[in-house]
């Protein structure tokens, strides 16, 4: 970071980074705020340090240098100007900059307030499409050995992780906060992050890509639970095989006992399942969860079966065992001892397994960044702070993050979620607080300003007010000191 380019002059140093050649006192920055005197050394002020200063001053951040290099060409046509012009002050200059916020779009003056919010309580919700067992619910999720979040519920064939939040960002050790911040930022910027789950798997997560669980890339997410799969494919199996078991960590389905099988008059086969029967043909906990068949830890599917009931079972009974994604499948026939013996799978059953596979969508990791507007949103507003919240709730003010649509979670405040793959690349940054810096825009019609605040009579063309007298709206504000 340090440059050997400064000539010492007493306690001051002379910066030669640019022709202004500022003399800089220890602990101070030059005229540009980009170079500073750190213990007699000229240092390039790291943007993060300046950001921290901005933050410690309670400042607002504006995007800096996120764009591409100037290649002498226009990269956009003017008609692609969709929204308002952004903040005009330039980082790291926090001069009280008037900035251009509005631009004529389709004859409507849109106002966009562009900023990068600092989200010190934020988090990401990660949805990992996998049947594989990642770890017990509430288990700690770690990055680089530090706790960054936990395993939460498993829903519809996806495992949810909840990462970040105030306790990991600021509640733990310094390192925990920094590692959490890094993990959140990388996940939000669609970069891969390796997460390890206490008592569970190691999973490589990257938004928009398949999860890699213990080194194996997940390909497909299951079409439904084992029971649902029975329901969906019962007709296609009817007449081609006597019994089907769809092995699933959650609900394993058994064709002959399942309601779908009953409707097709499929006879009992004498099959005996391990696990806890929920309703006919639906079994919980046939095996421990794991990364084997259907999210269980088994590699031999027969291990979920008990011996066939000799009163009902007959030799020659055919049976298909398949996982919920069709990734694993095996075909058996009962021998004279009523023991299942694996045989080559008949082509029409193979087809049905492929059909299951085909109906499983590509497994992905998806990352939702979640940030919120806390107290200062309300605290600093001069007239009626709840109006912005209401206007967001009433859909008069549109909230976007880097132009991407967000979901605003109903209830108090403005808590929003955004799919990070929709946000422009590299949009997320951080400050050493630690906290994430994310783009956020409020867009509203000028006409809605009226509904919002009623100050519209102040917005006029200069010409119409040339003769007007001095006007002194002396507003009492909560921030006022007196």
């Amino acid at each position: 970071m340090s440059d050997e380019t400064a000539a010492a002059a007493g306690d001051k140093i002379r910066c030669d980074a640019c022709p202004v050649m500022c003399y800089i006192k220890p602990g101070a920055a030059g005229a540009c705020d980009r170079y500073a005197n750190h213990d007699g050394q000229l240092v390039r002020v790291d943007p993060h340090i300046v950001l921290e200063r901005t933050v410690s001053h309670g400042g607002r951040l504006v995007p800096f240098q996120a764009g591409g290099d100037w290649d002498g060409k226009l990269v956009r046509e003017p008609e692609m100007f969709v929204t308002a012009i952004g903040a005009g002050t330039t980082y790291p200059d926090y001069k009280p900059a008037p900035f251009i916020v509005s631009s004529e779009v389709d004859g409507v003056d849109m106002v966009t307030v562009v900023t990068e919010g600092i989200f010190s309580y934020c988090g990401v919700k990660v949805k990992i499409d996998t049947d594989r067992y990642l770890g017990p619910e509430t288990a700690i999720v770690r990055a680089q050995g530090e706790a960054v979040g936990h395993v939460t519920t498993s829903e519809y064939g996806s495992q949810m992780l909840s990462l970040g939040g105030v306790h990991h960002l600021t509640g733990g050790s310094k390192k925990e906060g920094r590692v959490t911040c890094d993990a959140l930022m990388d996940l939000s910027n669609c970069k891969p992050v390796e997460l390890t789950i206490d008592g569970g798997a190691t999973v490589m997560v990257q938004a928009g890509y398949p999860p890699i669980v213990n080194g194996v890339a997940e390909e497909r997410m299951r079409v439904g639970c084992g029971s649902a799969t029975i329901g969906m494919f019962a007709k296609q199996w009817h007449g081609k095989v006597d019994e089907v078991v769809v092995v699933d960590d959650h609900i394993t389905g058994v064709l002959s006992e399942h309601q779908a099988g009953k409707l097709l008059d499929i006879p009992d086969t004498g099959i005996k399942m391990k696990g806890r029967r929920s309703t006919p043909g639906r079994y919980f906990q046939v095996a421990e969860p794991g990364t084997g068949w259907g999210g269980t830890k088994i590699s031999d599917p027969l291990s979920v079966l008990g011996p066939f009931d000799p009163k009902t079972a007959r030799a020659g009974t055919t049976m298909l065992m398949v996982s919920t994604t069709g990734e694993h499948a095996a075909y058996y026939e009962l021998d004279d001892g009523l023991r299942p013996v694996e045989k080559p799978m008949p082509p029409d059953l193979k087809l049905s397994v492929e059909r299951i596979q085909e109906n499983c969508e590509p497994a992905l990791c998806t990352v939702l960044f979640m940030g919120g507007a806390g107290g200062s949103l309300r605290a600093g507003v001069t007239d009626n702070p709840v109006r912005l919240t209401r206007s967001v709730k009433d859909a008069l003010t549109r909230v976007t993050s880097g132009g991407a649509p967000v979901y605003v979670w109903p209830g108090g405040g403005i808590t929003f979620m955004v799919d990070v793959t929709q946000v422009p690349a590299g949009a997320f940054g951080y400050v050493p607080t630690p906290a994430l810096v994310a783009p956020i825009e409020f867009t509203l019609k000028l006409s809605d300003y009226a509904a919002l605040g009623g100050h519209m009579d102040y917005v006029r063309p200069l010409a119409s007010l040339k003769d007007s007298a001095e006007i002194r709206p002396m507003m009492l504000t909560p921030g006022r000191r007196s």
Partner: protein
Amino acid sequence: MKRPPQIAWLADGKRLHLQDGPIDLIVEAEGSAPDMRRAYEAAAARFAGLLDELCAELQELRRAADPQHCRLRGVVARRMHAAVAPFATDHFITPMAAVAGSVAEEILGPMLEAAPLERAYVNNGGDIALHLAKGKQFSIGLMDRPDRHGVMRTLVIDAKDAARGIATSGRHGRSFSLGIADAVTVLARTASQADAAATMIANAVDLPGHPAIVRCPASELQPDSDLGERLVTRDVGELSYAEVERALDSGAACARKLLAAGLIEGATLRLLGETVEVGTSRIAASNSRLFDERAA
């Protein structure tokens, strides 16, 4: 080690960022695609070497301006001098008070010569030079204070208006202020005039000798500041409502004089949440809040 000027698109891909030393510009042009290209090329071409030109006369630029004679040679330096000269008889002011606006103007000029544009602006850290073709207008948002998520205020500048320059000065900025204003935003015919006038009006928003105001010699903060030993405002403590009003009155009196003299088109003065407007009431308080949760 000299760092070369930076010329890059901002993330939105439509605004150009030019940075060299302390000069930091955001440039945008609107017009046909070829015209925009020509304009941006002209901006980038003029930017090259601009800081060196200024630095060649830096010593002189940091001296109190002579109200009558200009010893400066460079076109930007001479513009800076011209902008501050009207104040130099009665006040201490150096051409540096108009550097940001003068540079903004200097970049906008070649852009407009290069191509017909619908709208264009060069924003130099809040000091802005504007161009508006007939019938066009800009909506400008103002921040109450740079270190707070203050209420957005907007004003509209129409092509029919005389103002083509906007500048803001105050004690929170990168440059020092002799006064206590949080922000004084000035509209003037040119950005350099606006810059100089904003400095003067912000200096006039003051309560001389008030114990709650912390001041310190500029040279203690920046050894080569053009303000030398003059006391610059570091902090403003508790002020009563009447004191805030008195300080704003003092600034407003200065602004009214400049308005009458034709040096400015209008001004908005802000101190501790109170606002005074001179010559224009088009600046509207609005309700748009920025997102932040630090105080949550």
